[in-house]
């Protein structure tokens, strides 16, 4: 497959890709790290959304109204 159509690996990684070195445990670790980052992002996003929806500070602020 031509490299022009898809996102090419950075120059410093290209020879590693060609030799298949990116299938090393480091690459797997990188993928799982990406998955973990995505999962944490999703967790934090729903957490913030729920916190805004619950709006505990609104419950507190009503006492001064």
């Amino acid at each position: 497959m031509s490299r022009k159509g898809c996102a090419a690996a950075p120059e410093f990684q290209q020879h590693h890709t060609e030799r298949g070195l990116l299938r090393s445990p480091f690459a797997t670790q990188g993928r799982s790290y990406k998955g973990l980052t995505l999962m944490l992002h999703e967790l934090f996003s729903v957490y913030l959304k729920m916190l805004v929806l619950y709006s505990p500070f609104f419950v507190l602020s009503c006492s001064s109204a």
Partner: protein
Amino acid sequence: MLISLTRGHSSKERKQLAWKVAFAALVASVLLYLFGRAIFGIFGITADAFRIGAGSVLFISALGMAQGKPAVQADNVQQDVTIVPLTIPLTVGPGTIGALLVMGVSQPHWDDKLLAIVSIALASFTVGLVLYLSHGIERILGDQGLQIVSRLMGLFVCALAAQIIFTGIRGYLVG
């Protein structure tokens, strides 16, 4: 609101009440989140129609929040305030109920659902913590500080509601 509603309670009772409210909010939210699809099925409502309806309700309540209007009158409440009005409608209001039902329908996979339930549990815990530390927070932020934070949150809820409505309209037009 917590202080005005629990005027006759001791400090210990008030702190217990904070965790009770957080737990009740967690149970109500998880149930609504999990059974949204079944509820839609029973009433024959599409998710997009509900997005538009729930988004509108959320938008109206968020407008009240942004303007600093009280949600319930402290004089008209019963003796036990844990479930009504502190959990429903103050913490889990009609807008939140709608948003939870829509969220549940939007995430059909169990791993996503599990992640969302963990987030809901964390958010409920934070609500409990804020209510538990209500005296300290009021002392630090003051009346004006609380009003500002509350109105800012109202703005965010308005934006969230608008996004839900837009998603509903787009889904209706495309699908």
